[in-house]
């Protein structure tokens, strides 16, 4: 059963047709990779899924409900969490506070005027956040300023923050971009573990073929704003059309 259904989505920026007739279906509990050369429209497509952009045509259904026209926070509350290309965390706050905020968002919703109770008195939230930090192997960093951490740790924290909301769909936008090999492999292992242990669907946009082929069990190739093929990894690897899109006609 598919959890995310993208149908005939098109998006135009002035004279540029960034997306046209994009159809995509992400199966529940799969790891679905969206790959394509620069400018293929991967990020535009992602932004259409999370409410940052509204497509000109087509529909995006998540779990049977349309996400179009909803604000990013509403889409998040529906169960879609997003990890950014450069980690988006609360740099001025401590690591523990970073983890507390999504826990509060999960429990209290988009807004709660909880101005008189102290954070320390919210035992259930504290417990959950501490537990998540342990799971992410960062319990020893809990009182550190998040901005002071290494990039790999920031990425880990961001993924942990998304997971603490118990999303049904986790979207990752080039999660290993600009990472050293060791950090990349750590991230791959983390994502594998998440996908194995949790009832979660992962959709990942990625450049790095090593990451894609170690994680994905379904791949969509985008080129010039439209899906070229959608298939299993082993078939994608040898597909001449994909090679052409990536390496140019002469290859």
């Amino acid at each position: 059963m598919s959890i995310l259904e993208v149908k005939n989505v098109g998006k135009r920026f002035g004279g540029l047709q960034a997306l046209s007739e994009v159809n995509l279906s992400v199966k529940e509990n799969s790891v679905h990779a969206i790959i394509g050369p620069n400018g293929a429209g991967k990020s535009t497509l992602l932004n259409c899924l999370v409410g940052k952009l509204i497509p000109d045509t087509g529909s995006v259904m998540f779990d049977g409900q349309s996400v179009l026209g909803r604000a990013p926070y509403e889409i998040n509350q529906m169960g879609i969490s997003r990890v950014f290309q450069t980690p988006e965390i609360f740099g001025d706050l401590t690591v523990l506070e970073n983890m507390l905020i999504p826990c509060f968002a999960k429990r209290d919703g988009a807004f709660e005027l909880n101005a008189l109770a102290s954070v320390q008195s919210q035992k259930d939230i504290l417990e959950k956040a501490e537990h998540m930090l342990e799971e992410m192997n960062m319990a020893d960093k809990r009182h550190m300023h998040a901005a002071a951490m290494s990039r790999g740790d920031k990425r880990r924290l961001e993924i942990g923050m998304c997971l603490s909301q118990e999303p049904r769909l986790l979207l990752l936008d080039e999660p290993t971009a600009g990472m050293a090999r060791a950090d990349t492999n750590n991230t791959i292992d983390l994502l594998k573990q998440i996908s194995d242990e949790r009832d979660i669907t992962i959709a990942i946009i990625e450049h790095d073929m090593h990451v894609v082929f170690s994680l994905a069990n379904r791949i969509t190739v985008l080129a010039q704003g439209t899906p070229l093929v959608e298939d299993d990894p082993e078939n994608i690897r040898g597909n001449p059309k994909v090679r052409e899109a990536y390496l140019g006609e002469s290859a």
Partner: protein
Amino acid sequence: MFNLSKKDLSLLILVAVLTLFAPFILNPFPAGSAMAQFNAGYPDLMQRFVIFGIFAIGFNILFGLTGYLSFGHAAFLGVGSYAAVWMFKLLSMNVIPAILLAVIVSGLFSLLIGFISLRRSGIYFSILTLAFAQMMFALAYSVLTPVTGGETGLQLALNDPRILGASQTPEGNIPVPGLFGLEMRDSADLVIGSWVFTFNVGYYFCALVLLASFYLSIRIFRSPFGMMLRAVKSNQQRMNYTGLNTRPYTLAAFVISGMYAGLAGGLMASMDPLAGAERMQWTASGEVVLMTILGGAGTLIGPVLGAGFIKYFENIFSKINDNVLHSWFSFLPDGLENAVVFIIHPFIGKGWHLTLGILFMLVVIFLPGGLVEGGQRIRGWLRSRKSKDNGSASHETNPAE
């Protein structure tokens, strides 16, 4: 105690001690001595310390936590003052209903202005709040003269109805604001040797309100709501993609800080029952920004210190004139005395803004965290000195040798 951590409780106690013993702390010099003009322990000035302290505490909840810089907060202070004076005119001279109405009315105004201004952030938000405040100033100054008294300001009159009170006292005077029989202007003097300490009812009333406001602000800072506000300042994008709607959070912070401003305005009118449009001018809005940054934006005690600092220097420096300077430097030869007075002259009296500007620049450049950062650095320096002393021989204790 009070549901506070040890650290916060000691901060609250510190502020309590500072405010309750202010008549002593601010009057260190005997009356009549040459240094007496540096005393600040008279009721009028002490009231201003705490009232502007409340104003700055509220402003800090918006600016210090969310980073939204409002340039129009004096408008809410002005609205609070007008509301309080109207309560004195119509209902009674009791300060409680006046202050309550001031808080409610300024809350409503800030809800409306915040709702519109918070559609933008950064510099555009600041400009929008400034525009609103200037519009309100213009309205109060001329258009709404029947409500606000226009240029002369809103004053009490002998023929005001005052339904629950008396229009005039038996002697035919306008009654004064009070709290169940206690008049705000009542004072008691304590004379010890050549020192005179003044204890004023109005000041202590304001001081108690300040303590309550400070306590409330600690609770807000330590609450999940306060943490969300800091998250807004840190990364709105992450907020939105974590399922949190930032708009109501910023609006709530805006309204809370507007109500604090209204409370300060109501207290101001309770101490001296008149309200003028100049309280809403943009310079007054700028002043609270200065207080908050000077003390330390985003810290609990910073705004209180900043307010006290600015109000102290405003009063002390503006009181010094050339005659005072001549008397200080009379020990110098005539020519030199005149030269020194000539150099210092632009920084005193009406030129005290120049001094404030220089102090502000120095603080912002060298102590971006404000006076609170200065205090932390001194403490850190003392601590490192102490540990050095303990570690090595004690020959360093007297560096003058």
